């Protein structure tokens, strides 16, 4: 790759790219991320849609907030179990809305630590906003 082809203006995310300089030598340059520069809006759109869809499932009582954050953070049940230090069978139960209210505070804290949020932040998604009601009612 020639240096001119690798130069991308994206101060939000800098990366090192190895390129061919004019003298034919291959060297590193500090440049921007192609993906972030061109497609960050698409990533954010998909993330928003995923959050809305998961929140709707939580509000309809189909899944628990633990499931919401597990999917958002791209974790598998096995990974979440290992990271939180909670048996897989228990985690499986905790992903269901029906069992969520019975989860002790200390266990919620273990999950919150994995998701790098506070327990109140985790519970916030159970609060219905006017936008949520509209979304839930219209099924959009």
């Amino acid at each position, binding site marked *: 790759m020639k240096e001119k082809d690798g130069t991308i203006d994206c101060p939000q995310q800098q990366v090192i790219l*190895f390129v061919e300089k004019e003298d034919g030598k291959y060297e*590193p340059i500090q440049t921007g991320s192609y993906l972030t520069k061109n497609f960050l809006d698409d990533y954010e759109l998909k993330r928003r849609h995923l959050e809305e869809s998961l929140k709707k499932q939580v509000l309809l009582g189909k899944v628990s907030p633990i499931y919401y954050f597990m999917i958002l953070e791209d974790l598998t049940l096995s990974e979440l179990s290992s990271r*939180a230090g909670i048996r897989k069978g228990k985690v499986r139960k905790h992903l269901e809305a029906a069992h969520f209210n019975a989860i002790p505070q200390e266990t919620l804290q273990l999950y919150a630590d994995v998701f790098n949020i506070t327990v109140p932040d985790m519970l916030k998604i159970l609060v219905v906003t006017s936008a949520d009601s509209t979304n839930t009612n219209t099924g959009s």
Partner: protein
Amino acid sequence: MNTIPYKHKMAAHCESGAVTSLLNNAGLDISEPLVFGISSGIFFAYFHKMKSFAFPTFIVRNKPGSIRNNLAKRLGIKFHAEKFNNPEEGMKRLDELLVKNIPVAVQVDFFYMDYLPEWERVHINVHFIVVVGKSGSKYIISDSYFPNLVELESASLRKARFAGGNMSPKGFFFYPEYIPKEIDYKKAILKGTKKACFYMLKIPIPFVGIKGIRMFARKIVEWPTFARDTEHLSHEIMKINILLEDQGTGGAGFRFMYATFLQQASVILGKPEWSELSKEMMEIGDGWREISLFAARIGKNRELGLDRLKELGNMLNGRADVEERFFRRLKNSI
């Protein structure tokens, strides 16, 4: 506590970057591509189904930890390394080393590096950063993926060093303890290259090396069966670009850095044919870059039908063919 005088430099990859940076700061003049090449960093493996991954994925470098271990073995460098079961003990030990002005590379879960933008941060337990000081409740960090030295809260570093899950860091850290005065780079380069050729051509594992690229090419058409919906599939297809470019590779899934290694090695070894091979590897990298851009484009446009995925598979097969020829020639030139 003060910051240890430390020359921070961005690098293509976190592990080769941390190793290079520690060695440079300890007085050894070695480039990141040489570290990468000598340690047989170039690699490919495809994982179609694994418990710890939510979706099929691939890697383009050797096993985490191998860069440090292989380099140490081949150059005669000694790294001091420790692991901990107890987080308090692990944090205390780190502080003790900082008081002694020893910069330390630590293994962390990338997710807790809160100085990086949110969209970059994923749970991956094999990120390496260098801790170069502490100020109050914050540690001073040299991260290859960030342009300057940064601060990280002690609580975040602790969570990151002691995260559970696949390849859990267990507080692992290392720093160079001994660097020989005389180093035989020629022998190390040849050994590292020979091993890289073995990984790419001969290793008897069906999802590793050239066989792994071909498996990826074959299996990509099955990706829609793993996806929740079109947007999920689009996200995963666009992650091909992240894995090849943004997730610390120096571009084209480490192929540009490997081309740079071969160019530098051709001078050290006095082998002009390696200069030709380095050009060839740069061109191979251009083909991987095309795959990255293609994946980003079809992901963004939601053009994710079978025909497009087959096209992607064909492009991958093309890389497998040229890399097979390339690594055979490289092997024969050793």
